[in-house]
């Protein structure tokens, strides 16, 4: 169950891996594909707590962090979370 989620601007990522290391629940993982610059980028799995650790350590400012005040009923699909509206 995710109490939070993130949006990831994959084209800005430079595959430095700092977010993956900093994520307390270890729900970020580097993709297999590469972005336009040839860099891999993070993919979010279920279990995000919205703690903002990834946003704090990202040198390329790719993360926006959201919290669900009430946990959503179904686990959100692995892979990059779509940017929630609003």
């Amino acid at each position, binding site marked *: 169950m995710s109490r939070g989620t993130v949006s990831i601007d994959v084209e800005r990522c*430079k595959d430095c891996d700092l977010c993956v290391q900093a994520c307390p629940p270890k729900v970020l993982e580097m993709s297999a594909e*590469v972005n336009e*610059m*040839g860099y891999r980028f993070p993919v979010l799995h279920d279990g995000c707590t919205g703690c903002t650790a990834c946003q704090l350590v990202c040198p390329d400012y790719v993360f926006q962090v959201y919290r669900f005040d009430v946990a959503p009923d179904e686990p959100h699909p692995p892979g990059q979370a779509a940017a929630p509206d609003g």
Partner: protein
Amino acid sequence: MRDEVIITGIGGQGIQLMAKTLALAATRGGLQAMLTSDVGGEMRGGPSQASVVVDDEGLRALPILPSTKSVVVMHHKHSAFALGRLVPGGLALVNSSVADPAAIRDAEVIAVPALEIARAADAPNAAGFVMLGAYATLRLIVDVAALGEAMRELVPPYRAQHVAANLRALEAGAGTVLAA
């Protein structure tokens, strides 16, 4: 025997090491080489380009080539300059893993999916050497063994762990051309 090539791409793709490997292999073989590089201020992601000219003796070449017989396109970003200098019908060796070969007109275009080939050769960081192996096999200025020796000499001690992978990539690149 004269050859000229401009290698173009973005920082971090190993373009400068590719060009230096080619120029050193030629020098070790008793040929005369000239190598110039043009990199932006940044270490990564910015434009990265290198030109290599090889001749027997009395090499006279300009550091900024007015025209070139061949181009190696590692990335489409910043490739306009190099493609603009390619003589009509010249060779354009394109890293089709990232750059789009169809975008290049009026040239002998050869596509090499360098990233996939490098990964298949268990040398994921050595797409540049795949292209270099392919290029040298097309142009027959220096052979792959000479390139391997030059690369071994150039890779600094703090990156020696990549030598074996680079050699596999050179062979794989040469193999792609021989098989085609």
